[in-house]
């Protein structure tokens, strides 16, 4: 796939590149784009990538990402890059970053955790980034791998 096509096909919006192959569906779920909501949504899956071997790309027309959304994407696609496009040009490009603390995004998988019963915002501390390991601020259990994706 030529590079120009990847980024210039939408006039305005966001291109999320370097998503691990097969994770595009999770990305659009995180962004709430599983239903048509105005702009064009373009998905390229299993694209050859120097960095990842194979990757997915998601292009969202007319939509810019909040910090919270970027952080969510970082949990499933830590190598992802976000390109902000205006007038067919990339005006900003950045890597997603996993913050030290993740609030309000994940639901604690421990059914007996107080955060699943009381009116509180979920909070997780990042114990390690590679591999990603999070610790619930409340019940102190750690979650890793697929459990993190399942808790989004």
């Amino acid at each position, binding site marked *: 796939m030529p590079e120009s096509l990847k980024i210039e096909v939408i006039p305005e919006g966001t291109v999320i590149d370097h998503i691990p192959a097969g994770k595009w569906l999770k990305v659009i779920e995180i962004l709430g784009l599983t239903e048509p909501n105005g702009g064009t949504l373009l998905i390229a899956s299993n694209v050859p990538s120097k960095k990842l071997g194979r990757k997915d790309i998601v292009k969202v027309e007319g939509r810019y990402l909040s910090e919270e959304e970027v952080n969510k994407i970082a949990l499933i696609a830590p190598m992802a890059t976000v390109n902000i496009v205006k007038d067919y040009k990339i005006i900003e490009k950045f890597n997603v970053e996993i913050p030290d603390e993740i609030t309000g995004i994940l639901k604690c998988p421990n059914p*007996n*955790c*107080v955060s699943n019963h009381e009116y509180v915002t979920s909070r997780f501390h990042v114990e390690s980034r590679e591999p990603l390991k999070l610790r619930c601020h*409340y*019940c*102190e259990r750690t979650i890793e791998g697929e459990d993190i994706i399942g808790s989004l």
Partner: protein
Amino acid sequence: MDWKGRDVVSIRDFSKDDIEFVSKVAERLEEELNERGSLDYARGKILATLFFEPSTRTRLSFESAMHRLGGSVIGFSSASSTSVKKGESLADTIKTVEQYSDVIVIRHPMEGAARLAAEVAEVPVINAGDGSNQHPTQTLLDLYTIKKTFGKIDGITIGLLGDLKYGRTVHSLAEALAFYDVKLYLISPELLRMPRHIVDELREKGVKVYETTDLEGAIPELDVLYVTRIQRERFPDEEEYLKVKGSYQVNLEVLKNAKETLKVMHPLPRVDEIHPDVDKTEHALYFRQVFSGVPVRMALLGLTLGVL
């Protein structure tokens, strides 16, 4: 470290210096108690004990500690007699109770409840057990007991026996022991092994950890055997409980191969995991361990209230 107003939620919030400081203060208070009978550091202060789940000994230990400091106690010992039954949130209960008290002790069946209470309350909150997560004051009194008995913690070999999966006391104790140069034998039925993340963490911190199901094989190595009850109430499935019920019993026969100096500890209550014959031997340390709860909890109450 300024202790006034500090919450005691998880042993993970403590440094080795914190643990040793509490131990020193507890030792001082124990000596003062022996000399004077009762103290008056907390005169005019009120402790609220909020026990959403039954626990006679931890509650009585905190109440005794507050009385021995000269303070007074209010509280409840089961959620069924409170507004929680009417649907009140934990946060609202805490915000209400803090209007009546200077320090709160909470026991709650949900993991993380003490952390939430501490975030909501202006007064210090002490965790007396949250689900199968943490029981930090038990850990502090366990460490205090070991230190008083052996004069040190570094260099000893400790066996944790029984329900290592659901037992919060052994989770907290293992995490705290990671500050010291100890060897740990984790002895349990396969079904009740210590959670993997705790074992990994201990190893990452350099603790020599041996996991086994064989109590008799491990016992000659040990300086301390810390026994826990297999807690029927924590099992999601009765059948799983029946498979492991009565897996181990520490009796005179088992102790034949132990070091003469081996001490047996238990957070109590026990059911059948330590035979009463052991009580009469020099190995039994569990009642002394119960006593340690009072000076350690006096230290924590006094420090968090800012009166020591």
